[in-house]
């Protein structure tokens, strides 16, 4: 039967990004990059998403949101941190309000560095995330069968 990797739906959240990476994420939808050719849909609904794509570092205001979004995505799921701020906190790392990268709050599977991350890098990161998604799906199925 069809694998998750053939239809990964994506949820994009801006934790505290400067919008540079967000614009690049939206670039991936344009005719030049067209991520829909991989079956990827940029959905706005965590209930229907497989990949959580986060830009920007986590601050105290976005921390509960990130956690909630992550908990609302049904298994199997992967998280992609896009941009250097989402990976480590970037230039904002030492700021009093920034907790750091996304991995300080939820587990991250793929890191896409760059400031701002290029659309090519984002697509490459998502494609790697899709491979991880397939592995997680196998694991999830084994766990379900074990129950």
């Amino acid at each position, binding site marked *: 039967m069809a694998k998750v990797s053939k*239809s990964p739906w994506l949820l994009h959240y801006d934790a505290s990004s400067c919008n540079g990476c967000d614009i690049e994420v939206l670039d991936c939808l344009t005719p030049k990059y067209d991520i*829909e050719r991989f*079956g990827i849909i940029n959905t*706005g609904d965590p*209930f229907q998403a497989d990949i959580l794509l986060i830009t920007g570092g986590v601050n105290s205001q976005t921390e509960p949101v990130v956690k909630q979004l992550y908990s609302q995505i049904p298994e199997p799921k992967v998280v992609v941190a896009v941009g250097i701020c989402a990976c480590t906190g970037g230039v904002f790392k030492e700021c009093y309000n920034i907790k750091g990268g996304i991995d300080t709050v939820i587990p991250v599977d793929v890191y896409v560095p760059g400031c701002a991350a290029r659309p090519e890098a984002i697509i490459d990161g998502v494609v790697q995330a899709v491979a991880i998604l397939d592995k997680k799906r196998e694991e999830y199925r084994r766990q379900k069968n074990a129950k």
Partner: protein
Amino acid sequence: MQVLSVIGYLILAPLAGGLLDGIDRIISARMQRRKGPPLLQPFYDIGKLFSKEVIAVNNVQMLLNLSYLVFLAIAGSMLFAGKDILMCLFILSTADMFLIMGASSDSSPYANLGAGREMIQMMAYEPLTLIVAVGFYLSSGSFQVSDIIGQQYSSVLFMPGMLLGFMFTAAIKFRKSPFDLSTSHHAHQEMVKGLTTEMSGPTLAIMNIAEYYEMILILGIFCLFFLNGNWWSWPLAIAACAVIFFLETLWDNASARLKWKTLLDSCWVITLLFGGVNLLILMLLK
């Protein structure tokens, strides 16, 4: 023959609906100068949705969605068995009520707004749908689908206005822009995903399969306009359906979403102008 036709509908409608959806997505992509997803993408999507974790927001939503699917399958089976068209249309509305109840059963404000909009959409297309059923009765003398397709002449000769009106309101049923108020196939709506916001995994997959049944049912009603006792009317009807489906896709890509009031006004004006006038003329003729 009837049994074969119903079994054929029940098995083939989701497949044909999925293929049409795939074609629709590719054509839409080409209209936007994109490559678009593979043809079988809708099947990949449904396969994936069934493999996902079940997040039940409450214990009735799945049941209501299943009822939506079953009632749509019954409505379609009535059409394809050659039974009463009026009854078929009533069951179609009943099915839609289950979807509305399913969406309003959860606590998401987006889903509840979507359910409200779905009801407004029903108000918009329902009058014309009934006028079309009456039109079939006046042109063929019977509500039975088997009698309507056995006529000497195609019904469309008597009811061209109703066909145009039905093409207009079918955009609501196909959930095409500018009438995709309650939920949209396109991502990023002003209310997340509308009706389907709290549906995930298998629940959403069932809703999608039901939509494919509905799509084929509506195309079947379009076929009724063209079918008559002669064999050549069948390829003609299928060709007409293909043209209508392409026009819906074109319209979907060329227009922006409307407000609910504009939707209601435009649908009722079209119903009165095309449906009502056509009905009056038909009553004078027959």
